[in-house]
């Protein structure tokens, strides 16, 4: 049993945690939820010894403890699994599990014992067994997470802390992780995890603590709360409309016409997309939904069939071609594909417009109109509500939600008729998510065509005018708004047998 008593953490003038009291019962899964900056991760780090508190105490089985670092926490039976996996990519699974803690005799590692110990651990937990001989870089992210869990468990903790275990995973990868957390609880471990996603909290947690601005705003058994109360506690207000209402309906005019179009990763498909439409694209990773978006964005070559944009033949060879024709592709991974992390918010926002032919920010001789750039960017920062609103701050300094607003702001500055958004709310806090949905609806209302690719079905159901679903590279279904339930969508994207398995697991 862990008791958190009147815990405070301050970073200079900033209070991250303010007088927090929480009880964590043994043998339960305890979720910590809250928006970015609410203090949930800080609380977890204090529990795991990665952050020393400024005031208050932690009690472990009734005894007050202060962990100076994670190794003291490990010794006391508390294991912390960080959000970014901290494995050595070139070492095998075995070596990673016991790194720094190898069974030794006379200073030599006992490789056979190391292997046996690891095998026993896997057997005891009933985990799906990843190939521990291979370098972990060759494993899937879900398998890597199992290695990380085994590494933590090899130090024999009683309490396992997960910091946003699913933040970097796709929906298909999330399920085994949640199952693993349940297995741990059923083996008698106490599990504490931080999460952005209410769905997974409802799927596994026994109890939830919600933080806002460093204080506890809700602390209840899951049986006693509903989604609205949790969201209300996270945001400090009740969410009447999380998904914005559309002001305009899609127009009749067809913008994009695909006829037997295919590329690597998808089979030929025929489709018409209308002006002002939000077209949701559902599908798990590898289903073809992302390949479809990349084909539209000029990142995958059209292999056969044809595409037409506004009646003209459309066959882009790269992103620049697609942009010129009027289609912008916004990639899934902000940090590695969209942002210039060390450059300013201003340079980030204006980049596509600066790169555009006949740009309003560039003179005929190639000189930048810096003053106009500054004015446009400042206007866009306030329109997108980017915080902090300093255009000179490097993009690296912003939170995930604000970074995504900078990325979306680009396409308000450089107006393209059609936007392909690949998982635009992934890793974004709840508050920014609602804002992003509103910007998407605004764009569609003003006559833009939005192709919203998402692995997160609820947001498709909440925002899209029409949803198409991909499975194994094929377009398998198309539903108009209100015509489909979450279960139907899951069933069509996952396929019959898989969907049944999922239902069993979540029961």
């Amino acid at each position, binding site marked *: 049993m862990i008791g958190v008593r009147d815990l405070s953490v301050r970073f200079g003038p900033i209070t991250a945690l303010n007088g927090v009291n929480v009880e964590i019962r043994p043998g339960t899964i305890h979720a910590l939820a809250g928006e970015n900056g609410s203090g949930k991760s800080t609380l977890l780090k204090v529990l795991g010894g990665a952050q020393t508190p400024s005031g208050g105490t932690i009690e472990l089985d009734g005894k007050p403890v202060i962990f100076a670092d994670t190794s003291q926490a490990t010794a006391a039976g508390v294991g912390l699994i960080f959000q970014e996996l901290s494995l050595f990519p070139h070492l095998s699974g075995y070596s990673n599990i016991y790194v720094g803690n190898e069974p030794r005799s006379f200073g030599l590692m006992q490789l056979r014992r190391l292997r046996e110990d690891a095998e026993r651990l896997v057997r005891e937990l009933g985990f799906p067994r990843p190939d521990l001989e291979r370098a972990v870089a060759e494993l899937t992210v879900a398998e890597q997470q199992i290695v990380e869990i085994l590494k933590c468990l090899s130090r024999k903790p009683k309490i396992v802390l997960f910091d946003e275990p699913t933040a970097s995973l796709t929906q298909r990868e999330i399920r085994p992780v949640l199952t693993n957390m349940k297995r741990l609880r059923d083996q008698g471990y106490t599990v504490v995890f931080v999460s952005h996603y209410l769905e997974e909290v409802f799927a596994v947690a026994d109890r939830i603590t919600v933080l806002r601005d460093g204080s506890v705003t809700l602390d209840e058994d899951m049986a006693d709360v509903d989604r609205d109360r949790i969201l209300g506690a996270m945001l400090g207000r009740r969410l009447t409309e999380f998904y914005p209402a559309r002001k305009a309906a899609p127009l009749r005019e067809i913008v994009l016409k695909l006829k037997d179009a295919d590329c690597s990763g998808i089979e030929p498909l025929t489709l018409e997309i209308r002006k002002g439409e939000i077209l949701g694209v559902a599908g798990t990773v590898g289903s073809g939904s992302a390949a479809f978006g990349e084909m539209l964005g000029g990142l995958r070559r059209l292999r056969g069939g044809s595409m037409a944009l506004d009646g003209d033949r459309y066959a882009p060879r790269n992103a620049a071609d697609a942009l010129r024709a009027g289609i912008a592709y916004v990639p899934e991974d902000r940090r590695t594909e969209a942002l210039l992390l060390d450059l300013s918010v201003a340079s980030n926002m204006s980049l596509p417009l600066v*790169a555009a032919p006949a740009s309003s920010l560039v003179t005929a001789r190639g000189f930048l109109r810096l003053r106009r750039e500054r004015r446009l960017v400042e206007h866009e920062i306030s329109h997108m509500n980017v915080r902090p609103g300093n255009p000179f701050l490097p993009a690296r300094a912003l939170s995930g939600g604000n970074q995504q607003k900078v990325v979306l702001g680009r396409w308000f500055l450089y107006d393209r008729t059609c936007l392909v958004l690949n998982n635009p709310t992934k890793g974004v806090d709840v508050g920014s998510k609602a804002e992003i949905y509103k910007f998407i609806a605004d764009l569609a209302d003003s006559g833009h065509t939005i192709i919203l690719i998402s692995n997160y079905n609820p947001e498709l159901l909440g925002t899209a005018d029409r949803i198409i679903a991909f499975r194994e590279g094929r377009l398998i279904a198309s539903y108009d708004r209100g015509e489909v339930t979450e279960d139907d969508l899951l069933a069509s994207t996952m396929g019959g047998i898989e969907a049944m398995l999922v239902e069993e697991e979540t029961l």
Partner: protein
Amino acid sequence: MTTQPMANPTSLRSGLVALLNSSLVAAVLVVLIIAFSLAAPEFMSGSNVLNLLQSVAVIAVLSIGQTFVIITAGIDLSQGAVIGLSGVLGAGVMGATGGAGSIILGIAVAVAVGLGVGLVNGLITAFTRVPAFIVTLGTLSIASGIALLVTGGEPIYQLPPAFDSFGTNALGVFPDIIMVSVMLAILGQILLRRTRFGRSVYAIGSNPRAAALSGLPVRRNIVLVYVMSGILSAIGGILLTAYVNSALPTAGAGYELDSIAAVVIGGGSLFGGQGTVWASMLGVLLIGVLGNGTDLLGVSSYSQTVILGCVVIGAVYIDSFRKRVAI
């Protein structure tokens, strides 16, 4: 409501930003200048200042190109070899043809050599997976080998008199060689901060994938950056030949290390996306002041090399604490 701006706020702001960005190097530079003037009174004499500036003019020209290359997260190790090759070929052509047009022809040949080597560097770096370090290490070896093959290792002394005097001649107060490098530095800074090409260079260095998805021609710009570095190295070769009145196939050996040091001292990051021509010029001046000042104090050139090494590491170490204003 209308407001009448008194001055151009953008240029004022970016000027301040640039100054802040390089303020630590600038401060160290000022401290060194004061210290050397106190320790060696002749340090501030007109002839010594000119001497100092002349001694770093070639490095300054190289550093402009190196700044662009390093901002794209690349590196150009072939600069010194290009100096040697363009110098001997340019001088060879001047000596062989003679007459009024010989200087222009020689310069054209030298620039063509720089352009050629830069094009090879750029094409291989942009279109293959061979890292710039390896590509330019290779062309370093190739260019310096060709320079030695062509000359048999012998220096070329036969130069037109008008070209000879260029290195030391004065246009107004400053010798031509200084004027050329200052002008190129100003053009370089304008190109980097005020044009679409310059902005692309930062974007590509910061995240090539994001740059491509924003519609920038990434490969073309990478090629251009190496071509620029090659041409500037050739100009460096011409200046050096004029300055020392002869062309030696090995004249530029090691110059690339000075230009890299200057860029890095000025805050350029080898990971790309950071650096300015101004800051690199401060790095060049720091190297020049250190060398000249320690010379006057009678420090051996061997010790100077040791000191420069310490300064490079120290500059990057201090730089890691600096809070930057992003471009």
